[in-house]
């Protein structure tokens, strides 16, 4: 809407610069930049270090260096190839994290793809959540499709959704061969879903319709409705059909 009222211009910062924020078309920061207010743009690209003290509104955000956003972020597409920290809520349509991203509040998106490290202090809501790497979610992971391939230990308070699959990505790491304590596993309090397929998971309660408890799992209580499969190499405290 604003586009029609006022023409959007580009903003380029090469070297060191500071801006108060505003409405732009393409924003590009090569070097060090600081935005001391709210910024609304079509594309936001940073190849250096950037700090946004207000909110960020953009169709696409591309971070190749480090970024810190203090205010809430509303995006269409977010690609983090470097490191970023979001202090407030983030809403996007697609999120790709190939570096490391920290969210101090919740993350909402249609799809979340993690190839690096994801850390959130509140919940994550999305339709599809796929990880090849590592994540720590201090809240509820609520997603239709959860596809986890861990290469480091991961954790979430709760996981809920339709299909939940947890696997180890690489068979065994160097550290794991040295000491069993380094072994990669997912830790969660409660896992609930229609189809659950777990490996190397430590959980208090798992509830689902069709449940497969694969090797390396330690689960206190499994409640299932239709089918259950338990690997001989899994430890399950009790298993109840409901």
């Amino acid at each position: 809407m604003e586009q029609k009222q006022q023409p959007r211009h580009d903003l380029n910062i090469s070297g060191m610069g500071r801006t108060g924020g505003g409405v732009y078309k393409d924003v590009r920061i090569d070097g060090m930049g600081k935005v001391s207010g709210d910024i609304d743009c079509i594309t936001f690209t940073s190849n250096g270090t950037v700090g946004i003290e207000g909110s960020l509104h953009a169709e696409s955000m591309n971070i190749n260096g480090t970024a810190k956003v203090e205010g809430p972020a509303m995006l269409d597409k977010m690609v983090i190839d470097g490191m970023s920290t979001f202090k407030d809520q983030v809403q996007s349509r697609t999120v790709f994290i190939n570096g490391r991203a920290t969210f101090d509040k919740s993350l909402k998106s249609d799809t979340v793809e993690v190839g690096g490290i994801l850390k959130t202090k509140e919940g994550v809501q999305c339709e599809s959540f796929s990880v090849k790497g590592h994540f720590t979610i201090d809240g509820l992971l609520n997603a239709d499709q959860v596809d986890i391939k861990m290469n480091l230990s991961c954790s979430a308070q709760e996981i809920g959704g339709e299909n939940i699959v947890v696997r180890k990505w690489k068979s065994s790491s160097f550290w794991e061969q040295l000491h069993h304590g380094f072994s990669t596993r997912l830790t969660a309090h409660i896992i609930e879903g229609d189809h659950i397929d777990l490996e190397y998971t430590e959980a208090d309660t798992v509830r689902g319709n069709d449940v497969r408890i694969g090797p390396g799992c330690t689960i206190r209580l499994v409640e299932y409705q239709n089918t259950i499969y338990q690997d001989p190499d899994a430890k399950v405290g009790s298993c109840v059909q409901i």
Partner: protein
Amino acid sequence: MDDDLISKKELLEITGISYGQLYRWKRKSLIPEDWFIRKSSYTGQETFFPRHKIIARVDKIINMKDDLSLDELADVFSPSAGETSLRSTELIERNIVSLLTLDLYVEISGQQEEFTFDHILCIYILEKLLKSGELSREEGLLLVRTMEEHYGKLAGKNAELVLIRKMGVSILFLTESADQLYFDKGVKWVIRLPIASSIEELKLKMNEREEA
């Protein structure tokens, strides 16, 4: 355990929905966050819901989800009034209210360029009650006047519309809850209508037409 709560397990069993659906509806805020009540039970931590509210809500979602997208449903369940305002021609063309009712409304409160959601709600309730034969034209006048003057104070709350009669005299009023009202024997309850349900119906009706 509290009688008025239902565990997640029990809810899924009674309604036949799946975990996937429940979590999806939570994501789309079809089920408000504060209905999820966490409690520890002897089997570990469990989630509970207010029994009556959640069962009614789930039934509604199941009935309507074939016709509306989840996002549209989320809008229907939001307690706030819709933002839309419509012209009189649109109201007729989109078959939200009949010309007869609209004319009566205009006669009472004057012609308007555009009708806000609250106005449309008033016309909609007027039509509904006139059609059902519970309300006479004179009482319709009472309804429109009362709604116009006082509905704003109750907007966003679960207001109820009540009409009582005694010896042929009608009294119409709006109240937050009509649960605790007692009259003498000669009084007859004619209408008791929760406004929230009319809001839902109206929103659905307006949505329907937008799609067509």
